[in-house]
């Protein structure tokens, strides 16, 4: 889980777009490992199949899609953030503190043995939300949404809230379609605006 958490913090700091896709791949790989551990722990074979599916979709295909997109449009560096790096890290620390606060005790106590891990995943969830707010780039927003989804999946696994295999496949299928649609939109946005900076989208003012 430390690896998982570290990737989310890194997503805030990196400047190169290609690195962003790699970090997301690593983060998703942490989810695969978590699924495999859960499968070994519960003896559920279906979880292994889900892990395989996650590996294909989130670890291989999604980063590949994003990397191809970056290469296609020759986009190298990420659009800026609203808060600078030191301030970003301070806000990240505040979110970690909030996730560890009494207000969220009922959530992290769902499985008392996993309290620390659940707190960490809850922090990751908040930090992913902050990534969406803080980054000005459309590509970062995609990664932010995917990272948020990973955080929720991690929380579900650690809190023992796995769904039936059919539903998990449904969720992954949904996510796959989302990734395809979002990357198509990225291409269209780049074509229309010549940039992925969402602050340059100002056609809806009236």
């Amino acid at each position, binding site marked *: 889980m430390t690896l998982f958490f570290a990737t989310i913090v890194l997503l805030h700091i990196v400047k190169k777009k290609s690195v962003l896709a790699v970090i997301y791949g690593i983060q998703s790989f942490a989810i695969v490992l978590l699924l495999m551990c859960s499968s070994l722990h*519960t003896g*559920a074979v*279906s*979880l292994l199949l889900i892990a395989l599916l996650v590996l294909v979709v989130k670890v291989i295909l999604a980063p590949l899609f994003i990397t191809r997109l970056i290469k296609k449009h020759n986009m190298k560096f990420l659009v800026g953030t609203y808060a600078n790096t030191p301030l970003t890290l301070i806000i990240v620390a505040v979110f970690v503190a909030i996730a560890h606060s009494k207000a*969220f*005790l*009922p*959530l992290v106590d*769902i499985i008392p043995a996993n309290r620390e891990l659940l707190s960490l995943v809850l922090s990751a*969830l908040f930090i992913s*939300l902050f990534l*969406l707010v803080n980054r000005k780039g*459309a590509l970062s*927003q995609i990664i932010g*949404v995917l990272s*948020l*989804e990973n955080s*929720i999946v991690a*929380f*579900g696994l650690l*809190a*023992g*809230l*796995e*769904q*039936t295999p059919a*539903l998990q496949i*449904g*969720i992954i299928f*949904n996510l796959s*379609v*989302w990734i395809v*649609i*979002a990357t198509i*939109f990225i291409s*269209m*946005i780049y074509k*229309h*605006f010549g940039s992925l900076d*969402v602050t340059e*989208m100002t*056609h*809806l003012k*009236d």
Partner: protein
Amino acid sequence: MEIIIIFSSILIATVACLFSKHRVIIESVSIVASLVAFIETMIVAFKVASTGTCVSYQIFFVDALGTIVMLIIALVGLASTIYSVQYLRDETAKGIVGFTRVKQYFILLNLFLAAMFMAVVSSNPVFTWISVEATTLSTAFIISFYNKPSAMEAAWKYLIINSIGLLLGFFGTLLYFTSLPGTGEAGLITWNSLLSNAAHFNPSIIKIAFIFILIGYGTKVGLVPMHTWLPDAHSKAPAPISALLSGVLLNVALVVVLRFKEITDAVVVQSFSQHLLIVFGFLSIVVAALINFTQKNYKRLLAYHSIENMGIAALGFGFGGLGVLMAILHMIYHAVVKSALFLSSGTILLKYGSSKIIKVKGVLTALPITSILFLAGFFIITGTPPFGMFLTKLLILSVGIKAYPVVSIASLFFAAMLFVAFFEHATAMVFGEKPAEIETGEGSIWLVIPPLALVAVVVCLSFYIPPFLLTLINQAALHN
């Protein structure tokens, strides 16, 4: 069986649209599918009105509230599909869209309708979530249909904000599963199993879960402050899609919130969810009223009006008692009349080629029937007597006046403000002298019949509610 037929007909139409190279076939199969869906939904409605529920193969479950929303989807879906045919033909004639776009449009329209039906009839909350997310995915491309930078921007905003909202809603959904035994392998968790297990829930977790649900699905409902995507998406989408987004989709998401509210109320004191709904509802009314004064675009005007009406419905559910009954009626009236207004706005857009209020004058001369429909829709939706929405707004606010006098009186004040703002804009558009270059006369009759039928339905429902619908409304009110 009826539910299976609904999905089969829509999916067959989608596949036919995908492979057909003839526009007439694409249009015909889409209309037939929505007609079949409408007829089958009526059968489901009569069944649920007489037996209470309709269950098929354990994965589908329809209660009274779900049936009401199914009826809304089917009715507005049919009207929008019929309207779409002529609307897109006119746009093709003007060189705005080509055959490929039309094909894409009908495929996505059918998928959108299927996803909305699925969200309402699914017995499993996670599958409901998948379906609501599918509504986002199917409509994102239709919002960017005209391929303009502003449409692209609106679609992107819609995609990202709704995806974030729905992920938070998904997180909230998962939290409701915490007290159930064996969520993973044991089988499908249904709305009913959640409700029957309410005694085992941890109230603290359920409180947090409901907040996530309200923020998550509330984004889709368009409640303030999660509403920012709504005016942009509704104003940039083609008119029939705006009708579906504004009249139907908001209600679909609201039903999901209400289903979780029912479970939450069984675990923690009812006032918890009620207070939250009142806060979000009141905020929605205030913001919509204030922003509408400065609107320059008539489709955005209608979109903000949807936010206000969802706010009023949320207030009704928050106030409880008779407020719930009125809120359900309000949902029905709003869905039908708002769809009629958006369809009329589409005809105005086709005629004037602009959605800016300042560029639209003398609609009464240019489009006599459409302008009357637009004005009728305006009077109905702003709660002018003797129409149904007058009664629902009045009774919702009078229910709340004892316990929440400030909220009720302030809501009345802001609703009145909204009436003034809407009146100012609507009269500016309808009356006055039309520009010389605009020709007089309605276009095709198929651009008039769908909104006319919808206005006729809402006027009839203002004075007479059929027994089966009344039974459904009463049953739905009992559970909320």
